[in-house]
């Protein structure tokens, strides 16, 4: 197992280099002047000064090399748009908030979605089952900006129960994380219900019952544990949703994270921010996949041989 992990970690480096290269190339392909923010034309002198300052007047391979060197030493460069800050500043200050938002959303998904799925599987075709699956479908179907606006309108403005936006106290964090967690929640509920129903049919569950084990033990040790394996594997792609969905949620709830900033940076042609965040996110996705693979190996012994 240790060798497996090391190998995976080592592979991260070429993957990240490839990501940098692709992002770099793509950003250069999109035309657009990062220094022209409004309709005002930028005088030639000012444009020249800006390009010189940010090394954009050098040939592309020099820029690329400088950038890679920067990444290797942990310096992601200055922001072209936020003149007082570097990409490192932005990441250090704002990235943890996005992570927090993502983790909380995931937490909602697990705390509400998994038990809903479990209970629905235990009472198939009951009102609870139909009700929770209906809720799950609605959760998938509703776009999260709609959910966000509705929640703010009812919960914050009309009933005054929670703040409309921001990210300071724990009350602020409830609505945005819930909104972001809604689709994963719906997904988990469905998935867990499905896997549990399947597991409940398995012969070994019948064996467990035939052994006279208490119902609770049968459920937790034999049924749940095996049902949750697919949930673990689903966690990695869900991370992708959480990262991309957070742009909208952060925007609407005024959460000072990097999700919103990522998209704004592309429009603004803030090359260094886009590159820096892409590198960061790709590392995260790779790490998440690795964690899932390891967890999977722990949970399902049948797959362990493959991981040596």
């Amino acid at each position, binding site marked *: 197992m240790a060798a497996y992990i090391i190998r995976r970690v080592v592979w991260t480096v070429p993957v990240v280099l490839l990501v940098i290269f692709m992002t770099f190339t793509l950003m250069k392909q999109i035309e657009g002047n990062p220094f022209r923010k409004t309709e005002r034309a930028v005088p030639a002198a000012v444009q020249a000064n800006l390009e010189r300052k940010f090394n954009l007047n050098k040939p592309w391979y020099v820029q690329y090399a400088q950038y890679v060197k920067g990444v290797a030493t942990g310096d992601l460069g200055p922001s072209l748009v936020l003149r007082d800050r570097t990409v490192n500043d932005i990441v250090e200050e704002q990235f943890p908030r996005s992570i927090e938002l993502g983790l909380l959303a995931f937490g909602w998904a697990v705390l509400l979605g998994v038990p809903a799925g479990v209970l629905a599987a235990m009472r198939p075709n009951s009102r609870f089952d139909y009700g929770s699956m209906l809720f799950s479908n609605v959760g998938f179907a509703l776009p999260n900006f709609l959910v966000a606006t509705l929640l703010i309108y009812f919960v914050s403005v009309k009933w005054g129960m929670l703040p409309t936006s921001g990210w300071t106290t724990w009350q602020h964090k409830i609505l945005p994380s819930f909104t972001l967690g809604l689709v994963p929640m719906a997904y988990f509920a469905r998935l867990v219900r499905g896997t549990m129903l399947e597991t409940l049919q*398995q*012969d*070994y569950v*019948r*064996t*467990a*019952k*035939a*052994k*006279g*084990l*208490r*119902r609770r*033990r049968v459920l937790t*040790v*034999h049924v749940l*544990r*095996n049902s949750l*394996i697919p949930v673990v594997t689903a966690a990695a792609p869900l991370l992708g949703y959480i990262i991309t969905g957070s742009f909208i949620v952060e925007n609407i709830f005024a959460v000072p994270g990097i999700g919103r900033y990522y998209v704004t940076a592309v429009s603004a042609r803030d090359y260094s921010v886009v590159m820096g965040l892409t590198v960061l996110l790709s590392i995260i996705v790779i790490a998440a996949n690795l964690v899932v693979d390891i967890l999977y190996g722990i*949970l*399902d*012994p*049948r797959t362990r041989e493959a991981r040596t």
Partner: protein
Amino acid sequence: MGRLLEVEDLRTHFFTRAGVVRAVDGVDFSVEKGKTLGIVGESGCGKSVTALSIMRLLPTPPARIVSGSIRFDGRELTTLSERELEDVRGREVAMVFQDPMTALNPTLTIGTQIIEVLRRHLGLDDRTARRRAAELLDEVGIPRARERLDDYPHQFSGGMRQRVVIAIAIACEPRLLIADEPTTALDVTVQAQVLDLLDDLRREHEMAMILITHNMGVVAESADDVAVMYAGQIVEQAPAHELFRRPEHPYTEALLAALPDLDDNGARSRRLAAIPGRPPDLIDPPQACRFAARCPYAGCGDSCALEPPALRELRPDHRVRTAHPASEREAVTA
């Protein structure tokens, strides 16, 4: 007499959208302490459902024991609560299932799966349970028992897995062991070993056993008494040697005739005798004799198509449910 298990007029029906499947429709038998009852019949005749009904392991929608009584050591099982049943299962009555490949939880070590039943019913502490588990593995013939406790089911072959399942079943010294087609999924060579193992264990631990199978040969080997099931009912029940020597029910005769007979000269040239027709649909079984459609002796003008035959005791310990038992047939033609 020492009747450990008495089943009386057991009816287990499945309530499905297509209709009510009367899988077990009036079954009576008993098992004596320390004896083996073999239940034979073709697929779909209700033998597994009978076994699962005893342990109440059928999913209760859609199945339900609609009537009948199952008395284990004088105690009525059909009215027990789930919690009370949990105390009986694995402790007093244990079951070995047909498919060893799926009967064990693939994500737990076999040690865990044995120990959990020991701790549940016998309250053993971890170390004692582990020692006992190793002893059990040893007893069922698994080499290097102690090391193999930490292995996972997928690291065992089919035959080995079935031994593990048996070890789990006998772990708490149950008084009745129900084995539902325990060898059907195994190679022929392994089959004999497992049957021998079951037999040895039964004698060692003084267990009664119900051995369910569609294989007449297995029954001939291992059973003391035999019950033949057809279309949800018992059609003949007798001690094993009696059944094989003097079968009464046309169905039993047909089953025995269908066995390939390797001693006969010209055996190769004779076709296997199959029983024409198919078993009746259990959603709407015939009101009269269920075997009548395939029976060579059912004729016009007899009761076969009009009334269901009752299970009657033709000789001591030999009961038959037919209007045309073999012994009465001879009398007629003679």
